[in-house]
């Protein structure tokens, strides 16, 4: 038969469990607004009666259990939702960065603005050419305005180029910065792994440490695409693609190494490996795509720069081809001559040692007027005949070359670009549509992430109302257990102090 002291034990376990429950509710309430906190629950199990494990059951039937005990403090978390969240978060990191940066790039090359755009500089240039052809091809003032407008146009190209290259370098630096953050997170996660593993050896669950680790993994998922697996031994393995970044306590940090064949831009390697890391999402990939994207379906800075280069080359070639057949005006000692270029073209040497004009070496950054035209506005050729002040017909009114240059504005059959303004427009529209599409993708991705986050919160978040109810029921349980203790105490009192006192 079980003794009264057994009853005290039972009451004591009741008190202990209720106390723990109250403490736990307090813990949950205190952490209701903590980021990444997962609500905790006591796993309470009832204690078996002692007789269950005894072979010879000599004790009478009807044995009562021994009360309650807390077997575990567990957190309520859904791993599947975590995985979903991290996948969507990676996408969000990618699209958000792309949308934000493309919006900024749009402002840099804003062709909708009427003052600073290339298209308005181009229009002014054609206007002054038209003035040259139709007002007075030999007028110094008009020639000066042609030279100035042409310069303004080339400077607009130069400016766009400079700003785009600056942005490219910025993205390169941001890649290095992101790699540093990733490495810090990886080290911290490994550290955390060590602590959790040590703590859980005792059989307890390291809830707060796990919350911290999950927060760090969430942050990591925004930067780079990862997959997380937990082995049965409780070891965490974090992989990016096929490369292990964290395996329990071992960390493979990432290195950003400058590549001398590619403007010293960074390439990302897992440390100790010679093959580049193949990552496919997250903020790191967004910066890389912006820095390296060079085609219509991978839009990045190189693509925009290449388009501007193509336009600059085409303008230089078409104008020069016409201009060099025209005659300049006599200028001091220089006679009227042909063969002068309007735009500067770098010279190159071919395999036979001959010098030739290399139009492919023109970029939007080095696009400028030729030295002759910069030196004197009289070196602009408007006439298709030699200008001779002493001849009967000086040809000073000859505007055929100027007219031919004016007509370039309306031609739609130019090689490579078709029409200058059309090409410029389609370049800018490419940027605009890409920016708009990234923006809408980022927005919809934001909604998806918020949705998953909501579901996570729904399962793991603290509800104050719930905790209050829990608190009250624990409180009542505590009072009831205390009552029971009083009841057993009184019974013991009767037993000890008042039994066997017959006749005293």
């Amino acid at each position, binding site marked *: 038969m079980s003794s009264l002291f057994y009853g005290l034990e039972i009451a004591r376990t009741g008190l202990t469990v209720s106390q723990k429950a109250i403490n736990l509710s307090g813990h949950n309430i205190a952490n209701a607004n903590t980021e990444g906190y997962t609500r905790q629950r006591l796993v309470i199990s009832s204690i078996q009666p002692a007789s269950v494990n005894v072979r010879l059951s000599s004790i009478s039937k009807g044995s009562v259990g021994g009360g309650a005990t807390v077997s575990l403090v567990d957190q309520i978390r859904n791993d599947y939702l975590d995985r979903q969240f991290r996948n969507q978060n990676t996408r969000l990191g990618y699209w958000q960065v792309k949308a934000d940066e493309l919006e900024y790039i749009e402002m840099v090359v804003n062709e909708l603005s009427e003052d600073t755009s290339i298209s308005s500089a181009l229009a002014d240039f054609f206007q002054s050419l038209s003035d040259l052809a139709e007002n007075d091809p030999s007028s110094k003032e008009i020639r000066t305005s042609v030279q100035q407008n042409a310069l303004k146009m080339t400077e607009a190209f130069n400016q766009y180029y400079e700003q785009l290259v600056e942005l490219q370098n910025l993205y390169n630096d941001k890649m290095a910065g992101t790699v540093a953050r990733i490495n810090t997170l990886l080290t911290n996660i490994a550290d955390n792994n060590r602590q959790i593993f040590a703590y859980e050896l005792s059989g307890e669950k390291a809830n707060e440490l796990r919350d911290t680790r999950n927060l760090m993994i969430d942050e990591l998922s925004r930067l780079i695409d990862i997959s997380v697996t937990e082995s049965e031994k409780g070891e965490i393995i974090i992989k990016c693609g096929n490369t292990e970044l964290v395996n329990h306590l071992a960390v493979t940090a990432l290195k950003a190494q400058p590549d001398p064949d590619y403007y010293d831009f960074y390439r990302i390697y897992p440390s100790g490996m010679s093959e580049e890391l193949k990552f496919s999402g997250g903020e790191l990939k967004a910066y890389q795509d912006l820095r390296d994207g060079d085609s219509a379906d991978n839009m990045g800075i190189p693509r925009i720069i290449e388009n501007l280069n193509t336009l600059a080359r085409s303008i230089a070639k078409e104008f020069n081809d016409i201009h060099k057949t025209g005659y300049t005006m006599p200028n001091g000692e220089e006679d009227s001559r042909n063969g002068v270029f309007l735009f500067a073209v770098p010279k190159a040497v071919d395999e036979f040692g001959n010098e030739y004009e290399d139009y492919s070496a023109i970029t939007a950054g080095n696009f400028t007027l030729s030295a002759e035209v910069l030196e004197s506005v009289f070196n602009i050729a408007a006439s298709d005949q030699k200008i001779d*002040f002493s001849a009967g017909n000086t040809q000073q009114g000859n505007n055929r070359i100027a007219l031919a240059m004016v007509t370039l504005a309306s031609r739609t059959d130019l090689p490579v670009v078709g029409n200058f303004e059309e090409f410029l427009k389609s370049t800018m529209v490419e940027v605009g549509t890409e920016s708009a599409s990234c923006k809408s993708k980022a927005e919809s991705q934001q909604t998806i992430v918020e949705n998953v986050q909501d579901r996570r919160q729904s399962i793991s978040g603290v509800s104050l109302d719930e905790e209050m109810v829990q608190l009250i029921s624990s409180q009542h349980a505590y009072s009831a257990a205390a009552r029971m203790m009083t009841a057993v105490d009184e019974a013991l009192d009767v037993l000890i102090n008042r039994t066997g006192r017959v006749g005293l």
Partner: protein
Amino acid sequence: MRITTGMMQDNYLKCLSRNMGKMVSLQYQMATGKRLNKMSDDPVDAMSVMQFRVKLYKSERYRESVERGLTWLQQTESSVMELNEIIKSAYETVIQITNDWLGDDDKKAAAELIGQLRDHVLTIGNAQSGTQYIFGGYNTKKAPFTVDSSGKLLYNGLDLMDAANPALIEESETNIEYEVGFNLRMNVSVNGVQLLGMGENNIYSVLDSLYNALKDGAPADELTAYAGKLQDAQSHVLSVLGDIGGRVNRLELIANRYDEDQLMYTDIKSKLEDVDQAEALMNFKMAEYVYNAALQVGSRIVQPSLVDFLK
């Protein structure tokens, strides 16, 4: 689905932020007056706006070219009309003179008159528009008509009488062109050869030889021949005038079309690009109302909890 405090707070903040975002973008539109501030606001419309902008530039540029062409042609026209008057005077003088009863002294007086008219033809030929000579073809900065020491008329250094000279033929076909439209070039000048004629019967030589004939006291029947030549000259000049008039008409039609086009392009561009202030204000008021409602309702869910009701 289980709702937690955290969820309610997050949702509330998100909705507020979204509403605020809408209000901010509407306010920006109203402040700048433009619906499109960067290409991504509406890529398709932005593309159209850029297209119309280019069309407007071109239209304005061509309009200016047309204006310049008209100015040049009008100068030309008034000079040619003056030439017409000269030929008429010369003709009347010849008709008068061929009446035989006028003697040598009268003929000498008439010769002086014809001499003056002949020199005036030279002045007309060297007419200018601003600082440029209009009848010289591409020779706009040097007087195209000069008389050399032997009294021959030179056009751009070439003898006007030498009709077979290929250089002169080339000069007669050289005219100044302006680009007044898409792939549209207009000839806006009349060159000296077209003005006076080439070869022996150019107006200057006719007047010159008439002058010499009158000075030498030529007989009436010789002088009548000149009447015929002067009539030919006049019909030539009238046809030049007609040609100029036709060109002027055409340019004016083109100018009108550009004016209409500009109105149309500006209108369409504005419809695409500019914000309708009334509509924007209305949308803003709506967004403001939604924002206020969200604030009010939100404040009522976020505050109370079970704690307020337990003792």
